[in-house]
């Protein structure tokens, strides 16, 4: 086992455990911090996948922007929701079945149909940031502009929702 494999296994275990902690911790702040650790782990996996630009964007966007947005949401909701009680109704059979059905089905498909194919790469293909930029402005020009339009519309919509609509005070 090489050194790179040991690092890969450590990063993968970090990602898996922090993803589980994100779903299951009782404190909302701990869940948020576990989400940030998960983002760092996934960016490490992106580096192992030869995608350093995506790894950098992962840290910039998720850790830098989205986590801050969720921190704002936690802050606005107040300290009452930081520590949650044990969720009621979780023990209901229907909820457990619903939580299990998609992962079990997907895992079944994964083991039966994909596991056998074992696709590995023959040569190291490098996709540079220049290639990504060319793909953005050649092939995917219209979706790129539409994404920027979507973000502008969502920011304006969030501001309109939060500022100018008067709820029952």
């Amino acid at each position, binding site marked *: 086992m090489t050194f790179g494999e040991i690092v*890969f296994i450590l990063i993968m275990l970090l990602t898996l455990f922090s993803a589980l902690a994100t*779903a299951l911790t009782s404190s909302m702040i701990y869940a948020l911090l576990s989400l940030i650790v998960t983002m760092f782990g*996934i960016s490490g996996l992106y580096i192992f*996948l030869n995608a350093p630009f995506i790894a950098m964007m992962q840290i910039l966007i998720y850790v830098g922007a989205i986590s801050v947005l969720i921190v704002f949401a936690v802050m606005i909701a107040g300290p009452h929701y930081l520590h949650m009680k044990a*969720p009621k109704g979780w023990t209901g059979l229907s909820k457990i079945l619903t939580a299990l059905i998609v992962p079990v089905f*997907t895992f079944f498909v994964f083991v039966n149909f994909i596991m056998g194919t074992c696709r590995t790469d023959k040569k190291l293909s490098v996709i540079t940031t220049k290639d990504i930029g060319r793909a953005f402005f050649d092939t995917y020009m219209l979706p790129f502009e539409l994404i920027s339009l979507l973000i502008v519309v969502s920011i304006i919509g969030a501001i309109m*929702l939060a500022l100018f609509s008067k709820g029952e005070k």
Partner: protein
Amino acid sequence: MTGTLLYNNLNIYLFVALFLLSAGILGMLYRRTLIGMLISLELIMNGAGLNYVAFNRFSKAGDAAGQVFTLFIMGISAAEAAIALGIIILIFRKYKHIEGEKLKEMKD
């Protein structure tokens, strides 16, 4: 699987992405507050992005399409988080709580 390095293998990335999807669905059902559901949704989005990059790396090498679509997913995820934050603020202002189970006016 022998002979190649562990991280040059598609299946292990697919397994990580599947685990992220499962943890996200579990969190969506386990959490009661809207913020917890939002956090779990980010996990699901990340699983999708990891799948895109892994398939791009191993089955269409040399093409940047998968990475471009992962960047699109990140943009959509940011927009969705902003809108969800606005809705959470609005719900908290109107009802003084953000528990998903109690928001059932449109159920009746």
